[in-house]
């Protein structure tokens, strides 16, 4: 595929991620911070987010699997996940975490389990979408093009 087409795909895809609420303004902030001195900044931060989230989701699964659930611990994990998803602009994940925390407060096990499932879904979705986005970026660079700046 030639550069122009790739760039158009990139722009359209990015726009759709924002339109569908997967990403919010904070992701744009990260893109703006990326420069020649740190051309992989966004990928680096998002990779940290993936690592962090994988661990947190595992911890959450384990914590909710206990006989006596420590809701404070569960809440602490969700709080962390909410924070990091907010920091990279993963809006849907963040919103799912907000709902999750409310049920932690109520100590509602069933609801918490549903929320965990929801958070996992949203996380896997945004992860897949971001990976697609980064692949597109790489293709553009390989084809000798520049990554279009999104408005």
């Amino acid at each position, binding site marked *: 595929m030639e550069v122009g087409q790739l760039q158009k795909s990139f722009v359209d895809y990015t726009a759709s991620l924002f339109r569908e609420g997967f990403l*919010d*303004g*904070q992701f744009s*902030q*990260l893109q*703006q*911070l990326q*420069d020649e001195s*740190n051309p992989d*900044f966004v990928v*680096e*931060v998002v990779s*940290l*987010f993936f690592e*962090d989230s994988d661990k947190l989701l595992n911890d959450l699964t384990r914590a909710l699997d206990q006989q006596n659930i420590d809701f404070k611990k569960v809440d*602490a994990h969700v*709080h*962390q996940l*909410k*924070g*990091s998803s*907010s*920091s*990279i*602009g993963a*809006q849907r994940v*963040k*919103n799912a975490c*907000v*709902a999750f925390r409310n049920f932690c407060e109520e100590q509602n096990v069933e609801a918490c389990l549903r929320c965990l499932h929801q958070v996992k879904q949203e996380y896997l979705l945004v992860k897949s979408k971001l990976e697609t986005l980064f692949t597109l970026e790489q293709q553009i660079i390989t084809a000798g093009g520049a990554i279009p700046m999104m408005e």
Partner: protein
Amino acid sequence: MSFANSTESNSTTLFTSASLILLFLTFLVAYLVWALSNMARNGVFSRRRRPERMEEAGDLSATSLGSHEVHVLAVDDSLVDRKVIEKLLKTTSCKVTAVDSGRRALQFLGLDEEKSSVGFDGLKVDLIITDYCMPGMTGYELLKKIKGSSTFREIPVVIMSSENVLARIDRCLEEGAEDFIVKPVKLADVKRLKDYMFGEDGILKQKGGFGKRKLQETCVDDPLSSSPSPSPLSDLSSTPSPTQTSTSSPSSPVSSLLLPSADSSPTCSPVRLDSPTRRLKMSNTDC
């Protein structure tokens, strides 16, 4: 005058002139070398001051040496947030040391009771920016320790939190925090913070107590202002009073806000008019 005499006096004159010119040139070169080395030391050519130069200068605050790069100690237990805040600060030309806990922050400052090590490269910290919710020592506890230290209480401390809780903001400001930033932190927040706290030369504009200053117009009825990105309204606990958000545009200062509490008796907090503090409705959630 004979030709021989004239030639001789010509040679002498020539020789004298040459010597004078040479002498003059030597002085000129020496002056230029001295002037250039001074300019380099003052950071005119390079924004980054090397530690050994600062140590040689003997004056770590560099007040007398011209432009100084603001050194920020960033404290956050989240790796993602540390990376972001570090980039935000570096983008605004700050030098950054990022640590993952209040304990490590105190160790870096040399305030930890158990370990009395000084900052690894001896650089003076100009600003501390810390997350509120951290395991072990919270940002609030770190703030208290710093403000309780005679050596470090003059260092401005800014608190960051994803939870926008009026009581928390007030508590931090009363304890001496200079400002309170709601996460996620944006470039505009950091730029504004740096601009109103530090001059072009990187020197603190005012010694401590920003947060405690009483302003003439602190108590302002909250005007609704539009937010550039969707506000996390779902964050808030449900109460009947309308949620009001104020976010600042990069070019204009933010007015300090008063939010009507559930019983609609407004409370005042001493927040600078141009601070990046953003306020949402009061809630009782803690970390």
